[in-house]
């Protein structure tokens, strides 16, 4: 250690002889880093949670037939023809995908696909006595759908297995159960817009946490759904697919689009509203926590600035006895970095404890434990930003110190 470290030696002496100021500066950084870490972990936890919510109802990629809208006028092909102007209207006759199995086979061969399922969505009314509720019944192979949407994780009653292959069964949202006043193994009358009415037995109740979904959504077997739609076994309205990396869904969607003329839509587009809300929240939290970090760095700046003012004679002496401007910068930057290092480490510890406490708070279903997690990258970025801020805060007074003119000081 000995030979080259005289600058560090001086820096340490300064720090140790001014314990109180050092402590204040450290605490400032501690607070800044802890808050930065905590807020960003919180923000990240919310994002993870909100994404989890999205994937309860959305797959990474959705393939469906887009509504076709008639053109407002027809182009004349020659001068003698007239232009026909009509009101634009939806001209889609059927929502069915033609040859769904072919599409499924083709997309399943892509390396990035983990699951793909066919689904029949039908608009239905749930009836019980006089009360009627509008909703959507999702006709699926329930085990495949479970693998995709992890439905079993938010079941509050019954079991998905009881629906598997049970054409007279239905799994409904908690909101439907409450409004229709039905419980497990009760019957519920379901009718489709095409006039098909069936009495189905409730085999399970789920709660996604989204009131809209819970009050409208149900799962039935795919062939039951086809009957509601008055269609045969080849009738499929939507194909859902999950991929190995949800973030890359838009790219994957582009690749899949080559295999079909139907609309291939990544989840980011389906849920653009939720995502933009997330973005606003993340940006705000990031900005707030960053400002707190900057304010903390100001503490170090202030204290070092004061030190430089008070030690101006000492700086002059050091320069007179052969320390260069660079040495003086090193001395004061070292002081800042030592204070910053301690502040950061303690700040990470404090932030970590806060995260640990929060993550053990049970929020009850459907949230479960408070959504905050230990994320290595956030710890790393808190540390790096903390150190960068202290470096900046130390460098400015250090530069000032290096510019001290000893002659001016000695003349006084």
């Amino acid at each position, binding site marked *: 250690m*000995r*030979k*080259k470290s*005289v600058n560090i*030696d*001086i820096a340490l*002496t*300064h720090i140790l*002889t001014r314990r109180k100021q050092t402590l204040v500066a450290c605490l400032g950084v501690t607070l800044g880093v802890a808050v930065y870490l905590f807020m960003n972990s919180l923000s990240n936890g919310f994002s993870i949670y909100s994404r989890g919510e999205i994937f309860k109802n959305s797959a990474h990629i959705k393939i469906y037939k887009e509504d076709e809208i008639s053109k407002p006028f027809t182009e004349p092909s020659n001068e003698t023809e007239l232009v026909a102007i009509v009101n634009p209207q939806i001209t889609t006759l059927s929502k069915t995908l033609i040859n769904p199995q072919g599409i499924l086979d083709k997309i399943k061969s892509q390396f990035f696909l983990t699951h793909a399922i066919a689904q029949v969505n039908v608009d239905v009314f749930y009836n019980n006595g006089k009360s009627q509720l509008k909703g959507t019944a999702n006709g699926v192979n329930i085990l495949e759908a479970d693998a995709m949407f992890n439905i079993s994780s938010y079941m509050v009653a019954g079991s998905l297995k009881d629906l598997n292959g049970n054409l007279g069964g239905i799994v409904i949202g908690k909101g439907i159960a409450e409004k229709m006043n039905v419980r497990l193994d009760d019957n519920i009358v379901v009718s489709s817009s095409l006039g098909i009415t069936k009495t189905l037995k409730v085999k399970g109740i789920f709660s996604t946490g989204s009131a809209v979904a819970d009050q409208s959504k149900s799962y039935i077997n795919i062939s039951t759904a086809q009957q509601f739609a008055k269609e045969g076994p080849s009738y499929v309205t939507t194909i859902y697919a999950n991929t190995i990396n949800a973030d890359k869904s838009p790219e994957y969607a582009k690749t899949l689009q080559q295999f079909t003329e139907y609309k291939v839509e990544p989840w980011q587009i389906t849920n653009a509203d939720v995502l933009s809300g997330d973005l606003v929240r993340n940006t705000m939290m990031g900005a707030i926590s960053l400002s707190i970090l900057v304010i903390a760095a100001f503490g170090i700046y202030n204290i070092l600035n004061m030190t430089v003012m008070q030690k101006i*004679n*000492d700086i*002059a*002496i*050091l*320069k*007179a*006895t*052969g*320390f*260069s*401007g*660079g*040495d003086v910068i090193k001395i004061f930057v070292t002081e800042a970095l030592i204070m910053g290092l301690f502040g950061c480490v303690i700040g990470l510890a404090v932030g970590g404890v806060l995260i640990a406490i929060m993550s053990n708070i049970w929020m009850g279903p459907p949230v479960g434990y408070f959504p905050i997690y230990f994320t290595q990258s956030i710890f790393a970025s808190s540390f790096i930003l903390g150190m960068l801020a202290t470096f900046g805060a130390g460098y400015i007074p250090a530069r000032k110190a290096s510019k001290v*003119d*000893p*002659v001016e000081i*000695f*003349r006084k």
Partner: protein
Amino acid sequence: MEKRNVVLSTKGIGKYFYEPVKFKVLDNISFEAYKGEFLTLVGKSGSGKSTLLYCLSTMDTTYEGELYIENEKVTGKKTDDLAALRNKSIGFIFQFHYLLPEFTCLKNVMLPALKLGKFTYEEVEAQAYQKLEMLGLKDQALKPTSKLSGGQQQRVSIARSLINNPQIIMCDEPTGNLDSKNTQIVFDIFKQIAHEYGQTIIAVTHDNDFAKASDRTIELADGKITNLDKKNFD
């Protein structure tokens, strides 16, 4: 008389101050200082002694003319090179002792040598003890500087100026704050440094007795050298 080695020389050094009005503090200063010489600078208050010393010290670079130290032209060098030169070749003693208050006496003496980096920490420590012993301060070595008397502090700063065995030691009124007993001690040390160790001392002083007893005295008046070897002190 045999030819003596010149350690420091100036050629026509001049300097202006511009505040509050432009005036010439130093005017055509040319002289030589020799190895092992105990040289004093005298002159009325305001004659420019301190200003000249700061130019000689390489800390003040805004002058005209040329400065040579150990036969090397110093004028125009980069500030980092000048810092290194001061570290190695010039020792300073100020009227106000200017020790670093949070370090012990020993550490104060050691710092310039640690900066020089020529010896290990242990070697520097031993050398610092030796310098302090020479100045009769060995038992004070581990005290903080604030616990010492004025005379003792001045001796610590002398020890510090000697630690790198510089060719030149410069002082601005080194005895200005000392009583006659301590002045005598410092004087004897300077004599010893110059005559036994062959280092050159350039000391600004107001004390005529001190100047008279030195090897040679240069007198300044209104920024000009009026006498290169003053003998007559009345």
